[in-house]
């Protein structure tokens, strides 16, 4: 049986995942990297992208994450990310529609009752999630 290590993925809103995994691939700011059991102590900044987890039973799971921080030490890996979503939690169509809508509203900039800064932040969030989904789709086909 493959060696495992503890992984926890936490966001400011909730704890997304905690458990034993065999391997982990994550998007570092300097390129993607993999983590196996007994990895050397390591810390880096994460870019928005896809985290790929291999469970003990061989099951694979992917998650779309926004930027964050990862720390690997002594048989434990901790991912601190701002958002982490499983693909089935993301509704692509709604997301795309909302993105288009927000883009349009942002371009118009003619209404006083809209908080444009909030809009911008939402848009960025939507874009990064869509990007993650795109990557996921590509992987599935391979």
């Amino acid at each position, binding site marked *: 049986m493959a060696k495992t290590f503890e992984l*926890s993925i*936490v*966001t*400011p*809103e*909730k*704890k997304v995942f905690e458990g034993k995994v065999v391997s982990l691939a994550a998007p*570092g*700011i*300097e390129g993607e990297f993999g983590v196996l059991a007994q990895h*050397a*102590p*390591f*810390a*880096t*900044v994460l870019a928005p992208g896809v985290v790929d987890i291999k469970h003990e039973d061989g099951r694979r799971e992917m998650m779309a994450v926004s930027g964050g*921080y990862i*720390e690997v*030490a*002594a048989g434990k890996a*901790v991912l*601190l990310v*701002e*958002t982490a979503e499983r693909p089935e939690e993301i509704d692509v169509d709604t997301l795309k529609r909302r993105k288009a809508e927000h883009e349009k509203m942002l371009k118009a900039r003619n209404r006083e009752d809209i*908080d444009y*800064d*909030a809009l911008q*932040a*939402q848009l*960025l*969030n939507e874009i990064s999630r869509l990007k993650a989904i795109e990557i996921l789709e590509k992987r599935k086909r391979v």
Partner: protein
Amino acid sequence: MATLREVRKRIKSAQNIQQITKAMKMVAAAKLRKAQERILHARPYADKIREVIADLVTKAEPGRFPLVRENKGVKKEALIIITADKGLCGSFNTNLIKEALNKMKDTPDLNLFFIGKKGMDLLKKFGKEIEKFKFNDRKINWFDVEEMADMASENYINEKYARVEIIYSQFQNSLQQKIVRKQLLPVVFEKEEAAVSNEFIYEPNEDAVLNDLITRYVKTTLFRAVLESQASEHGVRMVSMEMATNNAGDMIRSLTLLANKTRQAAITREIMEIVGGANAIQNG
């Protein structure tokens, strides 16, 4: 003496008010539970960041990071005031604003950031420069907070502020809150027992990673303050609505008593009139 009809009308309106306050109390209770859950969920993230940073603090010298370094020679300070959007929650907003006014008195050169509409409404007339405003409702999320924290941090790095403080209400339990004024920037670390120090490989390099972490720490601190203040707000509202409901109940009781007395008096008077009339006929 009030007529019976007037008294009944007052009872009715007291009953209506009681219904509303009762509903508001229950809504606040539900929201409080949710807000508490959010705090609980945010805890692992915040704890982890604190842990990592506590480790770093033992070895790092403060001058290395722009958010820890003190901006000497700068007078201007910034204040982030976290209040509620709505009223009807006792002295919640007033207390926060009092604290803010104290700070304003001490530091004339002050920029203000607001989270929550009430604070903005009550403090804008003091003529301080307002940098940013956000609604403090249940939809407020990490991104809103992040934006504000980024803005404050950026100004801090550009040496615009000597200090950034936040004023918020810390949640203790549903009956107790504490007004807290906390320094956000420059970052001060609470010394904790040194964690197990691992010799980490940092990518791209130690400074970049730690800088990123400190920024994150600032955001987490602010996010946590927002969550705490929401929980406090709902706690206070729950209690004050409970009191309002009780008061309405007392009022209804005393008004009902009054109504009954009035009715009784009217009946007595009528009987006396009838008896008087009958006697007059008999005697006549």
